[in-house]
């Protein structure tokens, strides 16, 4: 645990409320990702904030990134343009790479700090 971690936060992470908080963090992050690229960092950061450990923050960050990509793919299925977007190289590579890299980095940055 970092010296900067407030006791209240440490207690919260250990409580039963941590898991629901993570769900909310995921949903908030997903909503933010739909409107701005910074949502990737926000969602990852929130996941890291409520993660019980640094390792867990990394895993949650990756899961959040996967969730973003899955949600995006579902939206594209809904709008009938998944195949066209999936073949939009090289931009789609940036999308996938950023989706898988930014949230875990944000989660590690936050969890390592507090």
């Amino acid at each position, binding site marked *: *645990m*970092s*010296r900067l971690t407030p006791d209240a936060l440490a207690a919260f992470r250990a409580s039963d409320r941590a898991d629901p908080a993570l769900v909310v963090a995921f949903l908030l992050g997903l909503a933010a*990702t*739909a*409107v*701005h*690229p910074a*949502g*990737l*960092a926000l969602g990852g950061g929130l996941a890291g904030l409520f993660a019980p450990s*640094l390792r867990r923050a990394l895993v949650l960050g990756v899961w959040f990134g996967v969730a*973003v*990509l899955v*949600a*995006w793919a579902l*939206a*594209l*299925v*809904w*709008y*009938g*343009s998944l195949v*066209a*977007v999936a*073949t*939009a*190289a*090289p*931009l*789609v590579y*940036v*999308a*996938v790479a*950023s*989706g898988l*890299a*930014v949230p875990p*980095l*944000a989660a*590690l*940055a*936050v*969890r*390592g*700090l507090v």
Partner: protein
Amino acid sequence: MDALRSLAVSLVALALLVSAAVGGGGVLSLAAPGSGSAWTAAYDANDRSLGAQAERAVAGPKTVESPYGQATVRYDERGVPHVEAENERALYYAVGYVQARDRLFQMDLQRRLMRGNLSAAFGEATVASDRFHRKMDFAGAANASWEQIEGTAAGDAVEAYTAGVNTYIDTQPLPTEFRANDYEPARWRPTDSLLVGKLIAWQLSGDFRDLRTATLHEEFGETPELYPDSLDHDAAIIDRSSGGRAVPDDVRALDDGRDGDEDRTGDFSGLYDAYSAFEREPGVGSNSWVVSGNHTDDGAPIVANDPHLSLTVPPVWYEMHVETEGMNARGVSFPGLPFVVIGQTEDVSWGFTNVGADQTDLYTFARPTEDTYVYDDETLRVDRETETIEVADAPDVSVEVAKTVKGPLLERDGREVAVSWLGLTGTREARAVYELNHAENLDDVRTAVRRFDTPTQNLVAADRDGGTMFRLTGKYPYRYTNGERVDADRPFNATEGEGEWRGWEPYGQTNWNATGGFVSHEAVPHVENPDVLATANQRTTDEPGFYLAYSERFADPYRGERIYDRLEARVASDEPVTAAFTKEVQRDVRSLAADGYVSDILDARGEMSPSVRTEADRLAEWDRNLTRDSRGALLYALFREEVRNATLYDEFHPRGLDASYYPHHHAIQGLPADSDWFDDERTAERETRADVYATAFARAVERADAEGWETYGDYNVVDLDHQFPVAFLDYPETPTGGGPFTVSNVRVASTAGSSWRMVVAGDESYGVLPGGQSGNPYSPHYDDQLDAWANGRYHPIPTNAAGPVVIRFVGGDEEAER
């Protein structure tokens, strides 16, 4: 220890995040999943998606405020908009909106090109283009044309269209290309639409061939065997047509203006080399034909048209169906133009091919000083203006725009000419096309095309009453030297008063009725009610009655001959001409150009090595069809690409003349076997046609082997790339049949060919685009017609609306009551 490790990990992660934000923030903002600006267009790309259908079911069609009244837009299964409106302005407002929705980047690109503003968006690579287009001041010409249509019904339509485009720009997400290149389009102006018209007109009738001709005469003198006044064939459009009445029937013999023109030669090669990249592309042409009801199964005439323009991503044409009270038209327009250019109304169908007539003359002046020139015994000042070309990521560039009474000045390597291109004045073709969209019979068509000032086009049309017609559109200036009418295939000395046009005013308003100024509308060749008439850019007629152009501006006769052969054979048989037959002719890949070469290649086998001879033997059995699976077609096509170089390189290259100076294939085929042109000046021996053809064929075999091409389909691949260099915007590579000289037309080297195929036969009508309707790369209609086009399939194009209402325009009650 754990705390320190956590802090270290945190700092590293933070550093990586900050680096990504600083170094790749732009890319991230472009391509981030979900909210990346490159994906915005993906969420409104498919009108038939689950989401789009659900949204329409719950909330109805997308609603857009219109100042002009109500309209609806349906999109059918190929993404073709069907626009219905309560009045014309509401209609064209909606047309502007949907064209912007589907093609805004392309529209912006076209006006940037013509205004000389490409570099502001794309950097230094386009400065030369911007410089040329500024010097020509096409924008000034568009302003002059706007004066001609402002306040007319066509002008009102353009204004409403403009407002529709701007509503889209103001309220909707920009297309992906703008996002990726990080710039925004300026608001659309009515003159932007006219600039699109100028672009098309210039591409079809603007050229610097007079420089080329003068240079060739300077280097070689008279060479009628290579550059005859007329190619030796009997497939002239009017002369080979049947039925009806050709007008005028008392045509004069062509003035022989080439005699005594030696003083109009000169080495203009530097000037030509500098500006030929901006002239109409050699080979850009088209097919069209009309067959009267006397030869069809239902008694209704048939009109067929496939314009051969550049094959681009997205296509140069935009299909649309527009309907309001008093008008119901369907066909294709150029994005940026509100009107159907080629197509049909409920009563009339029409199509265009390029005439190739000479609408561009070039002039030299005596120049006492840098700022003056002598014309008509007067010393006049050059009208100069310095403009600044903004260049993205580089310093701005200045360009001097200089104008004379004969038009803009272009200079290079100490040579200078003024350019009189007919389209530089206030022309009225937009009004003509607007009226075509309202035509109810051929009389309406005849009235409309009186204002079709440029480009010069072969118009074929038919109406529901069974009438057919053919007419040249455009204005044909008479040229005068010492009061005598002359032809105009080389630059004139304007100081000596040569080549005068009467009534034409660059960047101003021309007096089209000036005495002796232009060929009268009645005297321009036309045919009333032809039974069978086919146009393929070949010579219009042997005796048009005035200087139309010499052979270099017309196409080789192969396509025209082949179409006439097919139609005449059908008419002579018991079988009626049908829509299915017409589509089959449009896809005809039989090469008459090959007929002119193959027997001589076979005769040259004695000069070939054994392995090359074995390959040449294949041509003996070849059916002369350019089909994908043919080895013979491949070898012939590669031979055709080599033969002019093998024949003429030794004479042309030392004089600094490249392949752009080479003559028609038809002229090469007409040379006698022992022509001097076949002799290689660099050798002591005397070569003949057999030697040259053997050399060219050996090169063809060598190239096929080097490239690994087995059959024609390996070579004849249509590879269309988007103007913006991002791979996913390009179309997939598509092998196809046909070639530059077959009816089914494609030029893989210059990516040109059948840019729209259309057949209208009574109640049946069909069309297909080389690509797709939408410029949105995420749309299912981005390239959904490409395979159909490459494989000769069509879709019906009736004048009935189809598909769900996707956009509803509301409001404008006051306007509707007017």
